[in-house]
């Protein structure tokens, strides 16, 4: 614990990339059309879900004008601090050797924040990804990301609540929330799971699908999207 605090101390000064990031969102207008915002849909691969686990890969793709830009993608491996050969990285098709030669989070994160630019961040179960990203950002950059976020899981929930009223007049609350199951349910084009970029693309498809199907296609502005799936936007920290 003490070692952890010590590590944090030299980073008290905030990294310039984060300062720029904060300036971008100092004033944020929710009233514009969805097509006027940029979104970055992201996914991370982790060594596990525990407190000591770390990011080993970040994948992201940009959406502008509500179209996925297939040429504007971010996909990087990250060398974790604790590289244990026993870790269950097998599922990600990432070998320990690949991780050993990957860049550390200190190098990847600023690139990623720059890639995100003034985009809103979108992800499936985004809180988990953002938790790990912000924890790393605090440690190596001295603060967290200011980008507003949207969790596709909440959109899915809102979509089901508004459009799937069953015969008994109430909706089924026990819906599957796993991305793979949702892809099957909504018959989306399928990407390879367990790869950060592929999962990010998969989520991007889910996001487009939701944004355009919610409320019978009547969601036009960011605020409307926000209101459909209350609460969508996390606090800006």
């Amino acid at each position, binding site marked *: 614990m003490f070692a952890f605090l010590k590590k944090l101390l030299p980073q008290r000064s905030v990294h310039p990339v984060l300062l720029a990031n904060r300036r971008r969102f100092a004033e944020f207008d929710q009233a514009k059309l969805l097509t006027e915002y940029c979104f970055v849909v992201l996914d991370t691969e982790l060594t596990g879900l525990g407190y000591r686990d770390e990011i080993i890969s970040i994948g992201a*793709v940009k959406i502008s004008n*509500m179209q996925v830009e297939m040429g504007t*993608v971010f996909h990087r491996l990250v060398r974790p601090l604790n590289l244990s050969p026993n870790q269950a990285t097998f599922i990600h098709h990432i070998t320990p050797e690949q991780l050993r030669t*990957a860049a550390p989070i200190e190098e990847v994160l600023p690139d990623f924040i720059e890639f995100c630019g003034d985009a809103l961040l979108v992800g499936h179960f985004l809180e988990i990804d953002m938790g790990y990203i912000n924890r790393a950002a605090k440690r190596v950059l001295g603060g967290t990301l200011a980008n507003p976020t949207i969790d596709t899981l909440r959109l899915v929930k809102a979509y089901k609540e508004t459009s799937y009223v069953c015969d008994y007049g109430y909706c089924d609350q026990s819906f599957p929330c796993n991305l793979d199951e949702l892809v099957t349910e909504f018959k989306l084009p399928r990407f390879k799971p367990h790869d950060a970029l592929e999962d990010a693309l998969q989520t991007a*498809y889910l996001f487009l699908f939701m944004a355009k199907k919610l409320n019978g296609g009547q969601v036009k502005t960011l605020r409307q999207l926000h209101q459909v799936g209350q609460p969508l936007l996390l606090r800006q920290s």
Partner: protein
Amino acid sequence: MKGNERAAAPEIVAEFLGRIMPFKELPLDTLRQVARQMKVDFFPKGTRLLQAGKSEIHYLYLIQQGGVKSFIMDDEGVETLKDFRGEGDYIGALGIIRGALANLDVETVEDTFCFLLPKAVFLDLIRNQPGFSQYYLKSFSEKVVATAYSELRRHRMGRSGDSNLYLFSIQVGDIVRQAPRTIAADASIREAAAKMAEFRVASLLIHEPGDEEQIIGIVTDRDLRNKVLAIGRDYNESIRAVMSSPVATVLSESTCFDALLKMMSDSIHHLAVERKDKIVGVITSHDIALLQGHAPYALFKEIGRQQSIEGLHPLSQKIPEMIRNLIKEGARAGHIARMIAILNDQILARLLTLLEVELGPPPVDYCWLLVGSEGRREQTFRTDQDNAIIYEDPTDETQAQECEAYFVRFAQQAIDHLVQCGYPLCPGGIMAVNPKWRQPLSVWKDYFTHWTAVPEPEEVLNATIFFDFRVGFGKAALADALRQHLHEVTRKSELHLLHLARQCMAARIPLSFFKNFIVEKDGEHKNKLDIKVQGLTPFVNFSRILALKHCIRETNTLARLQVLAKEQILSEELWKEAVDAYEMQMQVRLVHQLNQMDAGEQPDNHIDPADLSELDRRMLRDAFEVIERLHGVLKTIFPAS
């Protein structure tokens, strides 16, 4: 290693492009560059992607998943469906290349994901990749765009282009040049002739004296010549004595092609044009001939003028060529089948007329029956002969022998000539040369009684062939008597309908065809679809069963369905779906046979899925689903006991 390249497009795009023409021909690095420019958009079902004449096209749309329909909406908001496109198909190429606005309305029929290739990138490929422009230019000439184009001409261009097209696109009301000239029925022949001369018209409509709205007949130049001058009739007689009555009419919104069919099938030259119960003008065969140059009507007339049977052989060989043109010009399959039937009937009528002259008159009246697909007016390019002779019951044994001797020769020669005209022999022997199918009326009645009483496979098969009979040539009253008999025996017992229905419902719907196709991409599975047996016959059988049950005289499947809808035996919605599904399959079949003939092959009904576009497959799948609903109707009428 620093992770993947930031700018590399996801594999999925390159994979997708690598599977579709013409992108898969691109060098790998070009393909990757193109992939990097791609965007993905999602369009929920029912989204209007393009609007004809309004939308600028910014992207080539490549359908990753889902489907779209393209259609034309006329000024009254009536939609004409042009095309379906599905996975791997493109939208917008034509407009981008021509630098024009969208020429069709395009709307998603399913939730659809598209890859979007920006216009500039696409044009760059068109300019720099030779195979590329060729691919799109070639496919433009293919049938779908050809029909889209013909519609385009219809909507955008004046009356200067390809003349045959107007038969299908121009409405009768459009070629009416002036209000009808009329005269009261009590006017004299001389007054009528003077009026025709004054107005420089070749016909006058005759109205009831005192009521100009009530048109009761027509008089033409020909009537004056034949019924007045030639026989020296008194010019002061009333015109009522020489008019033709009633007047054949055609609705003003019918196409000129419809009018032409009517003139050809009824052998008339003038049609009064009706709009909202009012006669607004008269059109003549000459008006239509002006529109279409020569094609079908000229051939029809030429057949009628032939003085020797041998002269008919080469004329009949012209029919496929003419049909080919009609298909290429975008005629509907239903129209084409009617046109084929009219021309074939004309050949038959001329042939038998000349044959009667050659052999002398028959000892008793007879009727040349057409059965099977000919009976239903559903032939395609070359259909086997399916015919029979029914003749009046001979009064005594001598006459019976005379009949036998005459009709055996008559049938043999007729069939031989038909073969020479290009109608192959029926492999099942369903022809008038077969003594079984050359019988007097009473025997035919017995046949029909037997077939409805004994539900064995052979009887059921005969029922499906012969109950679709119609008059090919000769005395129609004989066929009418037989039809009447059929209705009577059916009314007494519907048992045979139950067997027909069971047989119909036993047919498996070939939806698995698509599954096989989708699974077996490498083409090793040589699973072909018999579009006649598996696709069309269920509609034919369904219509026949209900037509028999409700004593509907029509034999044509589309006509039967129409009557069934009119009588509210079939819901309007199901009727329309069935018509679309049936016509669509006829179209696929015609195009398939046309391609075979172009390749010098014998036309057949076996469709290789690999030859179908995604659009055809999608439409076929929808068509097959209609079969299921028709079976549902049969199930409620004939519940399984």
